């Protein structure tokens, strides 16, 4: 038998075929994401869930008689699904656009991503409640069973069909957008909606249809995927992060680029499975990192427009809520009393997550960069602290510091890769990079895969104080939290913090004053990673475990949710948010799988109705009250007083 580099052609071509099929799905999905991103400026995180809806739609149609017994409904097969489901999923997409997504068009782009993250959690959570983690079987339609022997390999008809049909759909979409009048309107509406509106075109409807179309593509991909992959609630979650990476690699503004990149990366992934199987899960993310270094705009992307940082902070610097010294004392006293009111372990969980959220707020709130991969820093520090304490017998404080050091290095590296891009790109890049850490943690022997590193000894603080005592441990964690909190306050109110503030407020102006803003952002990002590492390492010692959950992207989502609920860019917001989220998780713990649905709903509600968060809203109320009092005391309304000279 002929072999190539010691690899049989069957294996090589077999993996290339699988790669090509994955590539077709990547292409169809990233096409939809790119269209929605390009036309609506929405980073459609819910795209994976919509793809999953497509697969479940096909499965439902097949099982209509079982689902609605007594109605005499027929079982509709694959071809029916192919015709009906994309429209149904597109319709659901239109509904989502109407109800939710439309409301965030005029807001900072971060909100669009947060909203779709919430929607994805709700949809995937609901399916998880209904079907659990187990996948449903969907058989290949009879008409496409069997295959053809190509001599060097066996080619199943269904796979051939997926390749041909998928590529045809991609080309048709490309043609519609780039070569037809409808596409021209679409592209024009992206550039200048007001002008297109003046032509008598209903722009809101057009945007809704665009979104529905992109979602329909995901639905179609889902139907086509159903016979190949297992139909499961998780199928979309794993693919969406890869899709984001594909979009980053391909670059914005090029439809054909998205298609080509998707196909190419699928093949590369297939080849990697042949030559270096362990790397196949991360190869796309590594390619993304390389592309970012050499072509920051992506392979087919056009010159990037300098986006502004998202200024979402709601704090008033002179407010009592921003007085760090006062609150440090209050939190210290409150924290000291807490273990007498609640179970100390619960209190420690709050403190660890509050520190994590504060660290995250440093980059998201105070610099305005939507980082979406802080789980990488939190989790890697947790693993290192756990490993050094358990296997190398490091003293507790040294173990935590080792974790912090590793998190800082990873933070500096990821920051260096991501910092040149802003807005949604920054989110996608940090998310994808964090995924590399996650996949590493799954595969590396020393992290013990699904089990994690367990039975980590808490040890003795400075070799004296026994930390296996919960109260001792609690006060140690409280001290760490207060140090972290004070450090962040100092960073924000330092000469460096002033520059960060100016970057957030008006980056082009900060550059024109001579500040190399990227270096400031990079330092802030690294500090944020370092403090997130401090939280993660401490957590590993407290709970005596480091596991995959710590590096999973849902942990990044938690940081975001806590910061958002509490109030982005406020001193106390992340702390308040952590208390709310941790309490919520505890209260809803009995609901099991519903927790994700509840958290997703909280996300959506926050984005729609509580964008300023608890602290931001309180801040507004305080400001309004102060203003009313001033006017009642005979002062002029502020706006006019400022205008007079």
């Amino acid at each position, binding site marked *: 038998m002929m072999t190539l580099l010691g690899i049989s052609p069957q294996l090589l071509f077999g993996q290339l075929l699988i790669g090509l099929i994955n590539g077709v799905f990547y292409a169809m999905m990233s096409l939809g994401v790119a269209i929605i991103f390009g036309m609506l400026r929405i980073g459609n995180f819910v795209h994976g869930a919509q793809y999953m809806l497509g697969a479940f739609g096909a499965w439902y149609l097949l099982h209509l008689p079982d689902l609605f017994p007594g109605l005499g409904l027929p079982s509709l097969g694959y071809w029916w699904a192919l015709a009906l489901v994309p429209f149904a999923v597109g319709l659901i997409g239109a509904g989502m656009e109407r109800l939710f997504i439309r409301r965030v068009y005029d807001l900072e782009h971060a909100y669009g991503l947060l909203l779709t993250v919430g929607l994805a959690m709700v949809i995937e959570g609901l399916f998880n409640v209904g079907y659990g983690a187990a996948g449903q079987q969907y058989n290949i339609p009879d008409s496409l069973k069997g295959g053809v022997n190509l001599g060097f390999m066996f080619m199943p008809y269904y796979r051939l069909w997926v390749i041909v049909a998928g590529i045809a759909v991609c080309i048709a979409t490309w043609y519609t957008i780039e070569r037809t009048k409808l596409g021209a309107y679409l592209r024009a509406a992206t550039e200048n909606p007001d002008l297109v509106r003046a032509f008598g075109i209903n722009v809101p409807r057009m945007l809704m249809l665009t979104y529905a179309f992109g979602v329909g593509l995901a639905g179609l991909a889902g139907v086509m995927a159903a016979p190949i992959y297992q139909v499961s609630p998780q199928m979309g979650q794993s693919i969406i992060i890869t899709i984001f990476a594909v979009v980053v690699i391909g670059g914005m503004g090029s439809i054909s680029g998205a298609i080509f990149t998707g196909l190419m990366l699928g093949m590369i992934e297939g080849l990697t499975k042949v030559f270096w199987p362990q790397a196949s899960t991360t190869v796309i993310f590594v390619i993304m990192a390389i592309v970012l270094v050499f072509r920051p705009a992506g392979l087919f992307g056009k010159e990037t427009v300098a986006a502004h940082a998202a200024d979402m902070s709601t704090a008033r610097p002179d407010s009592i809520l921003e007085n760090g010294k006062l609150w440090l004392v209050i939190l210290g006293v409150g924290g000291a009393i807490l273990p007498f009111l609640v179970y100390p372990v619960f209190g420690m969980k709050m403190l660890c997550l509050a520190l994590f959220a504060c660290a995250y707020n440093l980059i998201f709130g105070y610099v305005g960069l939507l980082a979406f991969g802080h789980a990488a820093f939190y989790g890697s520090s947790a693993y290192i602290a756990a490993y050094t304490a358990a296997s190398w017998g490091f003293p507790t404080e040294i173990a935590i510091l080792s974790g912090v050091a590793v998190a800082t290095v990873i933070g500096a590296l990821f920051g260096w890769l991501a910092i040149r891009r802003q807005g949604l790109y920054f989110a996608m890049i940090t998310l994808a990079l964090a995924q590399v850490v996650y996949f590493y943690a799954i595969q590396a022997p020393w992290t013990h895969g699904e089990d994690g590193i367990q039975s980590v000894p808490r040890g003795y603080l400075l070799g004296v104080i026994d930390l296996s005592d919960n109260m001792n441990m609690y006060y140690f964690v409280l001290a760490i939290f207060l140090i972290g909190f004070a450090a962040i306050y100092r960073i924000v109110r330092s*000469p460096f*913090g*002033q520059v960060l503030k100016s970057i957030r407020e008006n980056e082009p102006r900060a550059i024109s004053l*001579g500040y*190399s803003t990227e270096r400031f952002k990079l330092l802030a990002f690294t500090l944020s990673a370092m403090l997130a590492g401090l939280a993660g390492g401490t957590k590993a010692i407290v709970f005596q475990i480091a596991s995959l959950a710590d590096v999973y992207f849902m942990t990044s989502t938690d940081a975001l949710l806590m910061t958002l609920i509490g109030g982005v860019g406020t001193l106390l917001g992340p702390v308040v948010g952590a208390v709310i989220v941790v309490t919520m998780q505890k209260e809803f713990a009995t609901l099991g799988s519903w927790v994700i649905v509840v958290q997703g709903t909280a996300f959506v509600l926050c984005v729609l109705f509580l964008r300023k968060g608890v602290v931001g809203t309180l801040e507004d109320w305080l400001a309004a009250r102060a203003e009313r009092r001033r006017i009642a005391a005979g002062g002029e309304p502020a706006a006019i007083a400022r205008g007079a000279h």
Partner: protein
Amino acid sequence: MSAPDNNQADNIIEARGLTKRFHGFAAVSEVDLDVRRHAIHALIGPNGAGKTTFFNLITKVLQPTEGTIRFNGRDITAESPAAVARRGIVRSFQISAIFPRMTVAENVRIALQRPVGTSFHFWRPESSLDTLNGRVDELLDAVGLLSLRDQTAAGLPYGRKRALELATTLALEPELLLLDEPTSGLGGEDVDRIADLIRKVSANRTILMVEHNLSVVSKLANTITVLARGKVLAEGTYAQISTDQRVIEAYIGGEE
């Protein structure tokens, strides 16, 4: 390139063959421009003449497609915007470039802070910057904003925002000050105030400005360059320019 000779030493900026194309469209095309030291040099021209693009090229916000820019004889064509700013070329913007939620004093202090060299010091308290307060107040006094120093910048009326921007820019002690339409959007009284201010700060300094208001240009500028369709149409004093037939056709007669 050869070392600068004595003739060139009098020029703070020397742009040669400067071209910027956007997807084939040449916004600025083969522009040669010298800016003499300590001059107030105005760039005028009809809308779309390439004035702002030219500004963006000088401050390296845009990278030229072709051509070179020399500042004090040194080639700065390949430098970053922040590096050019540190060399002493500081610009203002068409829309007022302030930091809206910082106070008036903080707006100026952020510019003074950079030369202090503690901008990366995240462990120092903000009060370490208090030593700059004297200079902040001097600058604010110069532009008539001292009484508003603790106000939030966002609350200032438009004309005051431009004054604040100027104070921030001056804080950097720029050798070359680039002003992009400093009087646009201002009412009569404010225009005069800003014009006076520009004259006041022009001592020992070079100013290159884009300006639509020809009466301001006539009062302030020693040299005027007229741009049209990305090219230099004419250059000279106001008297020379205002009688130039080509300029009248392309600009004064044509559009306004």
